[in-house]
């Protein structure tokens, strides 16, 4: 059987399009866990990062965090959190361990980009704003955040694309998502299933990438936009 035939066979299987192992279910699981991981990571790390950026400290921390984030393997966090959470009574097949691993993956780029972005705002601009009588809150909300928005959004975009790619690991600890097709396809030597899973994850990452580029354009203050 050629690769294309096995892809065709998988795509013509009714279970691929309806039921608990269908593409819609797996795609839905994949998207909601990825979005949830990025949102939770954002809630956790953006406020301290914005504050550190505003007081112009923490670039050392930012560097350390991103380096640690690069070094720690997501699969290691996933395996450890799976075992710990199951001990604490979580059910196998529930997404909690995957969420923990993905939050840990999403946090470093968001944290670092936010600090770096706010600190990259020209100090004289900030001083000027203070000189005009703006309060610290107004300086942050009206000057620093808008000017650093491209970099902050860039951090979120990097995090989101990484999370979409990495959420495939969840299938290794019995959770669903599109990784299910990759793990099951590999174990069953079912090339069609494997390829469809891998391609869908890739497409989802590309869609997220383009979607975020659009958001980034919209959230960039007009004065910072580069003519295209």
């Amino acid at each position, binding site marked *: 059987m050629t690769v294309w035939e096995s892809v065709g066979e998988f795509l013509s299987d009714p279970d691929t399009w309806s039921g608990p192992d269908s593409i819609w279910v797996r795609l839905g699981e994949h998207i909601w866990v990825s979005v949830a991981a990025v949102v939770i990571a954002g809630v956790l790390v953006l406020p301290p990062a914005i504050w550190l950026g505003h007081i112009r400290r923490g670039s050392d921390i930012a560097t350390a965090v991103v380096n640690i984030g690069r070094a720690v393997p997501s699969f290691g966090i996933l395996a450890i959190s799976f*075992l710990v959470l*199951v001990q604490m009574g979580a*059910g*196998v*097949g529930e997404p909690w361990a995957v969420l923990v691993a993905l939050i840990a993956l999403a946090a470093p780029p968001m944290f670092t980009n936010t600090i770096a972005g706010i600190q990259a705002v020209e100090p004289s601009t900030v001083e000027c704003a203070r000189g005009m009588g703006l309060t610290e809150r107004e300086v942050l909300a009206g000057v620093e955040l808008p000017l650093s928005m491209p970099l902050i959004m860039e951090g979120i975009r990097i995090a989101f694309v990484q999370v979409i790619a990495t959420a495939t690991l969840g299938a290794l600890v019995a959770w669903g998502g599109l990784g299910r097709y990759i*793990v*099951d396809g590999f*174990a069953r030597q079912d090339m069609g299933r494997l390829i469809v899973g891998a391609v869908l994850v890739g497409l989802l990452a590309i869609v997220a990438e383009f979607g975020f580029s659009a958001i980034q354009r919209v959230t960039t203050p007009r004065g910072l936009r580069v003519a295209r």
Partner: protein
Amino acid sequence: MRRVFRSRAVGAILGLALVVTACGSGDGATDGDPIKVASFNFNESVIVAEIYAQGLEANEYAVERQLNLGNREVVKPALEDGEIDLVPEYTGSVGGFLGVEQTADSQVMWDTARTAFEELGVTLLAFSPAQDKNAYVVTAETAAEFGLTTVSDLQPVAGELIFGGPPECPERPLCLQGLEEVYGLEFAEFVSLDAAGPITIAALEGGEIDVATLFTTQGIIAANGWVSLEDDMGLNPAENLVPAIRMEVVEAYGDDLVTLLDSLSEALTTEDLTDLNRRADIDQEDPALLAAEWLTTNGFIEE
């Protein structure tokens, strides 16, 4: 069997890595060369390999250990090429891997597997009465609720039960396919887990699945009071533990070596294996010490 659940691709990659890194070693064995004892990558195999290794050492054979080497995709080529000399095998699984017909008859299974392996320069010595087969396991509550003692008992209730096993299970003749063809079982749902590892155990403990694929000698079954359903229609082949050894090594060392390994196999029972597994898997005891203790208890080494 754990041996059945694997992926050929990973094996091929690891096997290649092994061949590349071990290049140059493994010339023909002669009397006096150390015997290279290997094992698969799970506790039971390590313990039995340690029993072989320490039993040999007690009789003044030089031994080199290559324990936890990998799955069968890695171990079999290493054995054929002489990177390793001796490994504890399972008659049914190695037979299946060599492409011979599998049967529940221990003698026939051993015979056909041995004949096939000898074409590759490896022989199987006498098999042990100890076996480790696929087990279909339910909790005591499930067994009581549906009155389950055998796999056939699942027939009227399978449609209400969730079955958990390794991801390849739906495509494997000794897993879901066999359960459907031999027993006519159609479960409500199949859940992809792992090969009788922590995920499957946690899923059965947590009630996310009703029937789990484990191995008969896994200590966790008795420790949790679970019920291993009897394979009353003989789906699973015989899986006797057996030393697989390079024929060159047998020729170099002669009958003394064979007699020694045969006596070790003869003394090993399924109960011993289950007990040793429980102590290694659950109590985290050292496989080498467990092997030493077993050899002492059975009179192969003196205290």
